[in-house]
């Protein structure tokens, strides 16, 4: 989910051992387990179990009206390989990931460096806040807003192009198979770059000032300082943001659903919307679950990368 996903990241373990080392603690007691009992049950029931169940459902064909369940083994996965829309969706997810990494990681990094380079702290705060505003707004609102912006004739984009003398570029942005997914991705960048800019700005603020002072004494210009100090000193944030952004790109759903629902002619489908289309519009739970399994595998890989990354970082510190 990309809603300005403050829902990211997580190194595991490590808390308990800290306490143990300091001094002998009273014996462990089971009654204290009650503090975590509700979370353990809820997470197991509503987060972990459905993932397991998803794999079971994906090996069946289910008739949701009669309730009949037929075991079909890996048939649904074989269907995936032959489904051209699955490949379109994958391609669109990859496009989403690549473009988002360019704008929301590297673009946001540069923007954050520019903002943090301003002399006046109030202006720094002002720009960070301005760029963040779209991230606070629901995707339904921004999706609908851009649906209107991309409208032929009455839309803001075409009107702006005409006003700038670029009338030849006017087109039905969401109505064309060639541009729909790019129009959606563009909206997503508009909404998301302020969030990552804010995070990069916070990372840049943690860099010790002395490094810059020393570089200035050595005669290093702004670009050299950017490349030799700011970039390496925020490398961890950059790595983390790349992973988080890729994860988000494979979970994309809302933007596409609100703006095109995958159309025209399935050209803007992503895995999430194709899962919805198959599972809930066609009522084909088994096949939908197989698509979900693909999303699961990809996000599990990026999740492991993230865990590995945060662990490694801890060791370095």
């Amino acid at each position, binding site marked *: 989910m990309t809603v*300005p996903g*403050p*829902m*990211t*990241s*997580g190194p595991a*373990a490590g*808390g308990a051992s800290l*306490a143990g080392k300091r001094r002998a603690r009273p014996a462990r007691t089971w009654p*204290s387990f009650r*503090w*975590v009992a509700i979370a353990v049950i*809820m*997470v197991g029931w*509503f987060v972990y179990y*459905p*993932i397991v169940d*998803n794999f079971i*459902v994906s090996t069946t064909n289910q008739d949701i009206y009669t309730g009949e369940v037929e075991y079909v083994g890996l048939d649904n996965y074989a269907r995936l390989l032959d489904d051209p829309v699955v490949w379109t969706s994958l391609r669109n997810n990859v496009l989403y990931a690549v473009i988002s990494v360019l704008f929301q990681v590297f673009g946001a990094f540069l923007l954050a*460096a520019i903002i*943090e*380079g*301003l002399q006046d702290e109030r202006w720094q705060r002002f720009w960070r*806040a*301005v*760029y*963040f505003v*779209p991230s*606070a*707004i*629901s*995707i*339904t*609102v921004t999706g609908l*807003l851009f649906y209107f912006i991309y409208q032929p004739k009455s*839309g803001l984009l075409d*009107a702006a192009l005409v*006003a700038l003398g670029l009338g030849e570029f006017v087109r039905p942005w969401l109505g064309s198979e060639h541009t729909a997914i790019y129009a959606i991705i563009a909206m997503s960048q*508009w909404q998301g770059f302020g969030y990552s800019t*804010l*995070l990069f700005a*916070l990372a840049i*603020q943690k860099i010790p*000032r002395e490094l*810059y002072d020393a570089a200035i004494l050595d005669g290093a210009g*702004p670009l050299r*300082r*950017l490349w030799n*100090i700011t970039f390496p000193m925020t490398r961890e944030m950059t790595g*983390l*943001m790349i992973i*988080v952004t890729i994860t988000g790109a494979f979970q994309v759903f*809302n933007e596409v659903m609100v703006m095109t629902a995958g159309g025209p002619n399935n050209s803007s489908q992503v895995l999430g919307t194709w899962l*919805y289309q198959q*599972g809930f519009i066609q009522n084909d739970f088994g096949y939908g*679950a197989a698509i*979900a399994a693909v999303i*699961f595998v990809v*996000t599990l890989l990026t999740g492991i990368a*993230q865990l590995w990354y945060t662990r490694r970082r801890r060791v370095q510190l």
Partner: protein
Amino acid sequence: MSAPAISRPAGEVDVWAVIARTFLLALLVCLGIVVLYPLVWMALNGFKDNSLIFGDPFALPTRWNWANYAQAWNRGVRDYVAVSLLVTVASGVCTVLISAWTAFGLTRSRMPMKPAVVGYVLGALMLSPTVALIPLVKMLQSLGLYNTYWALIILYTAFRVPFTTFLIRAYMLDLPRDLDEAATMDGAGERQIFWRIIMPLCRPIIVSCVILHVLFAWNEYLFAMIFTSGANMQTLPVGLTSIMAKHGTNYAVVFAAMTISALPIVVIFFAAQRYFIRGLAEGIGK
């Protein structure tokens, strides 16, 4: 804080630096316009009538016509806001309470198997709601919770507890341990330590968690769309798409409804920016 990346040392005058600085400022301003203008356009369109919206996208409204806003509010937005408020508040209270308990158990209680439970709860951060969708529909249908507020309250809580626990746990780990030890000496039980000592100290991170949860729940679309149907069950994000379907030809009303639904969260963001940013920063990098 003095300029790290871009600025030059004082006293040095360089034509290129001035040009670069001007260019960068222009870039910031242009980007600011690209970000804010569509939002202003949205709010202004709520005051226009259809002919003006279709006629000239750049036109300013001729008068402050609140009728569209009133119409949007009365034709559904009021109900959607009520549902969104209910779901947001209920799931927020549950999420923060359960997460605080869990974080306390994981950092300061004498419970066994802490590392395993930490891995279990935080590992859930890696699982996305999309993947669980089909099994969850089957499960909530068989529990009879489909199309109830409970469906959203339970799911928002279950999927947000790992992240919120992660934030609160990181904060609790940094609190001095002597506090609990002193309290234990004085004969306080774990429950008293939690409510009387730890929770008051955790207030800043709790506020951050509440705000991040409000942002999440107010804007959530996937679960809300799948698990509720019918006008009196829909939250704002889903309701907006219904308004679009029903009044799609009356653009002005749709714009007014969009503006009403975006406004509270923008106001909350600016009012509580400090807590907001703390939460985001801790969430990504601790």
